[in-house]
């Protein structure tokens, strides 16, 4: 056996294939592909715009291409490692700047050449960072970090920045005028309505004062301390005024906040009860929880709103046909709350199920052996342990409710909500600045809640502290509670069945509310537009799901396994999408990508990008979770056996997370299929999406056709999800044989 195999893989100053390959690719792309596009069309070859043709006239283009060439030459020279790294880094960074300059100077929509060239330079920057010893990672990882950082900046931070900018720059002037206009508008928030005989402000303050006095007196009797009296009186007084103002007020802020509070409270409460049911019930009905909790994931959120109209609207089946009423009571806050509670309870349920499951049963057994009753244990052990998880679920459902766009549009009863005002300000009133102001207000609210959730509540999970839960038999609920909660759950299931049923029935009913005869005309009416849009949606969602998942897993891998400057910032900004309402991101994309060299609106690409970066955080989460399952020494071992990080990712990490990757892919696909709030801004008659089309049908009064397309969507999603669960189970079973190797 030749002992030469033991020698170092490469001498330190041999030619660097990484540098040569990337600069070759960058150079080829920059020379042969067109630098500019003529209009919105992406795949049109513009003559006279290739790098070769621009070389003579555009000096910045020539300089950028020279940088690429220089990087290739550096790769071929016999240089010490560090020196080469430094020089490649400098040259490639200069190249990036030159590409940006060249694009900025022309102001025309960019073509594929600068994209290839720029990405090539980014890879070279990464390789330079790695070779130069600035990052303790190989070129692949370093380049990945650079790529990901740039993508996050362009497609997440830059659009948000564009929203902020539009809110304070009106016609090129820095001003807070727009904020003033919006804040004074009755559409935004109004407590004292001049048109009502009642003086709402006075009622609110009177109520606040009464509550304050009562709370103060109670505190004086119970606590007998001046400080307690003051705290309680002031706190209760302010709360009283706020509640009264919310109840009596008008405007988008009032509506959104009131709705979010109601929905957050009910969803979390129901979610916790259902979580107890799922983990602790003795009744067979608990098995229904799994499938039922998937429903909202596969349904565009507003489909429940649509179903609410069918059942409880003016011509609703229950309200009109059964009860003989003609009421609009359910159109507005009441119906909207119900639709959102139905949609978001499963989210709270899934979060809280984890909390209840992770609770150490030994603690409850300890409580019981100390003589506590079931109720006492529930009150003194389970509840305090679950409290942070409950706060967490509450805050997240509040964010979801605030950000929801579809339901308020469908059954908001024409009242303003923050998420919809963002949309109507642009689409109805053609005022991007006003939309931006509404967006900023909404963003501030959700972001505050997100930060509270992440840094205050998020760190108070007791459950994770205990570490290893004992494998005792789960405790059962007190029977009275078990039956009561099961009763509530069954009502909930009945409602869900009715709502989904009405959508399915509605899609084959002649004219809901008037003529309940069977017809296939709505389903047939989907041809050709409906089917075409459905196919477009499916293909765009699929195209977006792949990079979304891969990027998410890559970021998850980078942030869990490597430390590099800006790691926390990267993690935080990529998670931002959780907190940024879709409508805000939507106007961000409109404002950021509607002109200049980054012109993308009206193309499929912008919708794909919106999907990719909207769904990436979910993939990051599941990526992080999946990678935490892998013993780190597996990767270290692979490294020591001479594998580079790309090889390690491909040969060790990817096979071990394949089940998680597959489900991540499917969820990214499904979320894209059902997304509405962000893409509603980005669709055009040419590039339309199912959800937007359903909303359009609703607006034009074609309820039957809306129901038909919704049914198709829901059934399709259900099939996809079931296929996914089936294959994930098989993958897990196959991996399970090997997975026990990790002791």
């Amino acid at each position, binding site marked *: *056996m030749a*002992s030469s*195999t*033991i*020698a*170092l*893989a*490469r001498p330190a100053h041999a030619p660097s294939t990484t540098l040569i390959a990337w600069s070759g690719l960058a150079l080829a792309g920059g020379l042969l592909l067109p630098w500019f596009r003529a209009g919105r069309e992406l795949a049109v070859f513009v003559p006279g715009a290739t790098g070769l043709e621009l070389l003579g006239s555009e000096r910045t283009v020539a300089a950028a291409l020279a940088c690429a060439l220089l990087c290739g030459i550096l790769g071929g020279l016999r240089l010490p*490692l560090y020196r080469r790294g430094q020089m490649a880094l400098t040259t490639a960074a200069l190249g990036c700047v030159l590409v940006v300059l060249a694009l900025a100077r022309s102001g025309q929509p960019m073509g594929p050449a600068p994209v290839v060239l720029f990405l090539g330079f980014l890879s070279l920057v990464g390789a330079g960072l790695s070779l130069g*010893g600035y990052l*303790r990672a*190989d070129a692949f990882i370093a380049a990945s970090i650079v790529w990901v950082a740039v993508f996050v900046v362009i497609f997440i931070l830059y659009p948000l920045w564009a929203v902020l900018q539009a809110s304070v720059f009106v016609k090129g002037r820095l001003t807070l005028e727009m904020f003033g206009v919006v804040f004074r508008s009755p559409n935004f928030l109004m407590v004292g309505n001049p048109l009502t005989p009642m003086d709402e402000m006075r009622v609110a303050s009177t109520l606040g004062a009464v509550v304050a006095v009562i709370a103060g007196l109670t505190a004086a009797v119970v606590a007998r301390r001046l400080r307690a009296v003051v705290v309680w009186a002031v706190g209760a007084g302010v709360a009283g005024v706020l509640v009264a103002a919310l109840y009596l007020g008008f405007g988008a802020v009032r509506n959104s906040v009131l709705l979010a509070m109601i929905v957050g409270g009910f969803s979390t409460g129901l979610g916790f009860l259902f979580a107890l049911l799922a983990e602790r019930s003795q009744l067979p009905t608990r098995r229904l929880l799994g499938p039922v909790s998937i429903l909202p994931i596969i349904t565009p959120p507003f489909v429940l709103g649509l179903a609410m109209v069918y059942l409880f609207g003016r011509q609703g089946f229950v309200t009109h046909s059964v009860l003989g009423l003609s009421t609009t009571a359910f159109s507005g806050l009441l119906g909207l709350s119900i639709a959102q509670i139905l949609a978001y309870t499963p989210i709270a349920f899934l979060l809280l199920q984890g909390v209840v499951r992770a609770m150490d049963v030994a603690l409850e057994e300890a409580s019981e052996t100390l003589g506590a009753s079931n109720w006492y244990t529930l009150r003194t052990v389970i509840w305090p342990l679950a409290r942070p998880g409950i706060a967490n679920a509450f805050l997240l459902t509040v964010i979801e409710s605030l950000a929801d766009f579809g339901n308020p549009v469908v059954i908001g009863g024409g009242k303003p909500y923050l998420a919809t005002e963002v949309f109507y300000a642009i689409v109805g009133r053609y005022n991007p600045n006003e939309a931006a102001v509404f967006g900023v207000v909404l963003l501030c609210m959700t972001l505050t809640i997100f930060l509270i959730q992440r840094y205050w509540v998020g760190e108070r999970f007791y459950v994770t502290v205990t570490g290893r839960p004992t494998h005792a038999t789960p405790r059962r609920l007190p029977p009275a509670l078990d039956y009561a909660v099961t009763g509530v759950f069954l009502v909930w299931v009945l409602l869900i069945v009715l709502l989904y049923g009405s959508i399915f029935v509605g899609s084959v009913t002649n004219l809901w509310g008037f003529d309940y005869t069977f017809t296939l005309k709505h389903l047939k009416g989907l041809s050709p537009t409906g089917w075409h849009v459905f196919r477009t949606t499916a293909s765009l969602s699929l195209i977006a799901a792949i990079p979304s998942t891969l990027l998410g897993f890559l970021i998850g891998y980078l942030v869990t396994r490597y430390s590099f400057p800006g790691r926390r910032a990267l993690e935080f900004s990529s998670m931002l999408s959780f907190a940024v309402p879709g409508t805000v991101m939507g106007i961000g994309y409109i404002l950021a990508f509607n002109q200049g060299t980054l012109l993308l609106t009206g193309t499929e690409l912008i919708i794909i990008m919106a999907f990719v970066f909207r769904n990436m955080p979910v993939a990051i989460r599941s990526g992080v979770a999946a990678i935490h399952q892998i*013993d780190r*020494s*597996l990767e*270290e*071992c*692979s*490294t*020591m*056996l*001479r*594998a*580079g990080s790309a*090889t390690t990712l491909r*040969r*060790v990490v990817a*096979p*071990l997370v394949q089940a998680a990757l597959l489900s991540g892919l499917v969820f990214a696909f499904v979320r894209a299929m059902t997304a509405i709030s962000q893409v509603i801004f980005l669709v055009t008659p040419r590039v339309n999406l199912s959800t937007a089309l359903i909303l359009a049908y609703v607006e034009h009064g074609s309820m039957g056709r809306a129901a038909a397309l919704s049914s198709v969507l829901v059934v399709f999603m259900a099939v996809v999800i079931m296929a996914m669960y089936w294959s994930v189970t098989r993958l897990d079973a196959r*991996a399970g*044989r*090997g*997975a*026990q*190797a*990790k*002791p």
Partner: protein
Amino acid sequence: MAVPATQLKQVLHEEASPVRFERVTKRFGPVLAVDDVTLEVPAGNLVTLLGPSGCGKTTALRMIAGLEWPTEGRVYIGNEDVTPLPAANRSVTMVFQAYALFPHLTVFENIAYGLRVMRRPQAEIRQRVSEAMSLVGLPGLEQRAPAQLSGGQQQRVALARALVMQPKVLLFDEPLSNLDAKLRKRVRADIRMLQQDLGITSIYVTHDQSEALAISDIVVVMNQGHIEQVGTPTDLYRRPASRFVADFIGEANLLPAVVEDGAVQVGGHRFPYQQPGVALGAATLMVRPESVRIAVGGEGLPGRVQTAFFMGTYADYLIETEAGEVSVADSQSVDRLYAVGASVRLQFSPSAVYLLPPG
């Protein structure tokens, strides 16, 4: 078909290289993990890094592997400064604590992994894997999944996977901690025999002092990031350089003593003893429990039996004396224990005690 492993053996023997640490320091933020360590590992030796958790032994090992990088100082393998080299370029392999067998690959593919990464031809891979498997004694298990193997077999797969790369240095990161006590003894004997047979430079990390004593040529005792003592197992046991080493390696009684000319006095008991290089005056007398003789009368340090336990092969006593509590493991009285409260005399044989600085 098992292939004789002579070729691999020879290559491994030829490749064995010394390892050198030159003033290596490693900081994790404010934490000083390894503090100015200089160390020489001779080629072909098995050197153990021993110490309590957090003493820096694993960090030191990982710096040889290239999985961590020194904040200051240089690391040499053979005559080459490998400090800037990534793990992949160091010709070093490692047996990981939990073996780190790739659960999705068969035994054969696990061992072949590194060769596949290096894109060796299929025939060579088959040949070399087969050699490595016969070297560690794993015949006929090529197509098994790691999960289907016993702990000892998994251990051997990990070893074969490391050896097949023909490393200059082989690293072990607490390789026995996942085995039960009985198996541990056997596997550690296997590792030692194989290592001696191959003459490969091995660096072994453990917190188990009996393991370290059993298998090492040289033991490096580490504490809080620095080296307390380097020596052969006998050296460390008989002649510890510090209270820490005396206490960490085996059990030790550390008694305040006074050194006189040609004798040592401990708790009023005086016995002839000489140790070169020890100054007269206060000192600490180290004596192992099994080296204390216990008697009812005669010469010796007087004491009273506080506790007495039957331990099977010996009797375990705690004796209260003027010099403090003394732990004694006595095999003479195992059939008839001294009663608690009994007055006894303790005698120290000069060949089994050692003087340390006072402390």
